[in-house]
């Protein structure tokens, strides 16, 4: 494999979980809920995925467990942010800390003596397509779970897009919750469901990371991917195509970081780390084109 191909492979490999989480987060943010706990959701998903796979011996059941792990945190975020009106930011940060501590604790308790062999997914090389030069292995060498991720992303984007009935209701909730409520939309329910969906997708993303890429669990293995997913939504200006593009870009940037020494380029990796965030700042400050966050983002809804 050439270096370029390698970069693409690891780039897409990094981008896929990022993409799943980002598209999930996009749904929540369109409804007005900001999930800073995305990081924690992914980490929980990774942990429960590995735990599930190791306990049952089946990577598929592990993946399911990963989704449930994400949902657990999502339920907490939904209850606290929507029903109790707690500050979404506080909850997000605290949930991340909780997830980090709990998964580390859990790993020590439950995974320490299980040995290194985690039932995971193997890559499938799709005949013919996999042999396309340069991009073949990257695009068509995913694991089965990876393909599930792609499917989930496409289905979500199609079923909940802004032109669909559900998508419209979600957007209404995020734009003007008071008006939406008066129109008869169940604002709190919509937001809660969106958060749950996001957390399920984040759990799936964590499972993909743990069972398809790294094939193990290590403390804090998500290392900021969750935050990057939130950033991808911002950089993508709250539109599905933008988010996908941003996620792929960030994934490639990440892969580039590790490839730089091999390329002989003297740019410090830290500079590359900054790029996604700088892009997002530029995007959101409207220095290039128009961008608008959903008007009700982070404002909890209370019927006065």
């Amino acid at each position: 494999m050439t270096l370029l191909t390698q970069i693409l492979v690891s780039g897409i490999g990094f981008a896929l979980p990022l993409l799943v989480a980002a598209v999930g987060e996009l749904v929540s943010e369109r409804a007005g809920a900001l999930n800073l706990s995305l990081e924690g959701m992914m980490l929980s998903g990774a942990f429960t995925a590995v735990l599930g796979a190791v306990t049952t011996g089946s990577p598929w059941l592990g993946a399911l467990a990963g989704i449930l792990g994400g949902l657990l945190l999502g339920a907490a975020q939904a209850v606290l942010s929507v029903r109790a009106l707690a500050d979404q930011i506080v909850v997000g940060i605290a949930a991340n800390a909780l997830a980090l501590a709990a998964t580390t604790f859990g790993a020590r308790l439950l995974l320490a003596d299980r040995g290194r062999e985690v039932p995971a997914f193997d890559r499938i090389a799709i005949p013919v397509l996999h042999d396309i030069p340069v991009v073949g292995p990257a695009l068509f060498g995913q694991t089965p779970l990876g393909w599930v991720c792609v499917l989930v992303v496409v289905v979500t984007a199609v079923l909940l897009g802004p032109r669909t009935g559900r998508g419209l209701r979600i957007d209404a909730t995020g734009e003007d919750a008071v008006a939406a409520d008066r129109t008869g939309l169940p604002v709190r329910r919509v937001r809660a469901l969106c958060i749950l969906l996001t957390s399920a997708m984040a759990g799936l993303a964590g499972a993909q990371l743990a069972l398809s890429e790294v094939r193990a669990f290590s403390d804090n293995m998500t290392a900021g991917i969750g935050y990057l997913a939130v950033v991808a939504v911002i950089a993508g200006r709250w539109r599905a195509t933008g988010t996908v593009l941003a996620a792929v870009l960030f994934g490639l940037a990440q892969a580039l970081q590790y490839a730089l020494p091999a390329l002989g380029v003297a740019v410090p990796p830290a500079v590359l780390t900054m790029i996604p965030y700088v892009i997002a700042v530029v995007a959101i400050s409207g220095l290039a084109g128009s961008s608008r966050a959903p008007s009700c983002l982070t404002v909890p809804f209370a019927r006065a």
Partner: protein
Amino acid sequence: MSRLLHPAAVAALAVAAALIVGLLLAGLAGADPLTTVSALVEGMLGTSYAIGESLNGVAVLMLVAAGFVIAYRAGLVNVGGEGQLCAGGIAATAIGTGLPAGTPAFVALPAVLVAAAAAGFAWAAVPAALRVWRGTSEIITTLLLNFVGLALVTLMVHEEGLLRQPVTSSETLPQSAPLVEGAHLPELGLSRSPATVGIVVAVVALVAVGILLRHTGTGLRLTALGHAPEAAARLGVPVARARFLALGGAGAFAGVAGGMLVATAPYVLAEGFTSGYGFSGLVVGLLARGSMTALAAVAVLLGFLVSGGINLQLVAGVPATTVSIVESLIILFIAGSAAWAARRRAALRAPAPRPAATQAETVGAER
């Protein structure tokens, strides 16, 4: 019943609930409640070393939180504590390692801290400017700049041309050279305690902020701005300038905290030196809900729990992460129940009159 809805009572109940969960977890790890609690308390308060370490942490939390509260009063949410800590730390290190070796403390220390404050202010000034002139959400921009700041620190300590200490072997750690002695935060001199004057600075700052917010015209105007920006503008508050200074000020406070972190043993700048204080400080600020006493209480609680955790692991064999779990639960329970209780209290009050017909758009976004 309504007495139970008082914020302090709610918070106390939340803490209690979280502690119970913690005890259960400790039990899972094989330690009975008594051992757990005694190890925890001993870790928090047992040795003056532990107390000293905790106080230093409390000082950082207090400063970040106090800055957060100022901005919050003006209606701005500063999520950028981590990045501002980094900016402050970098500036402090740059000055602190650049000064000649024999610089006296009364020159070095203020220089370092002022530089840190200025850097923190500048780091917050970008989101502040974007908010004031383009209406961009400061929640998002400050959050993003956190990661840029953290990456910047990594950059600084990895590059010899920047702040990295001279590389003498392959084992030279990626961190800065130590700060000159004059720039070290003086210790309080308590026996075997690493506590520095940082805590004094923090408490003084807290008192000053309290007085500012409650008893000065500036504080009143900031409060008005946060609640009703249009009315505040009508009544003569220079809205744009006030917002810019409030967020910038929050950055300055966090910057000083970053400088203090670097000016404490081992007096070097290294990756991860912020230890999440930026986020923890924000949490402290939000949970305090405007009261300086509450802020101090929460800061002390969170600051001391960390030491307790370390001892818990050493003595009782319970993973230190248990304490982190309890901390997170405390925050979640307090946040959840406080908002819920506030809603119950509000329900007992008649609703505000229907707002009159308002203009749909104004030229120049105001939130």
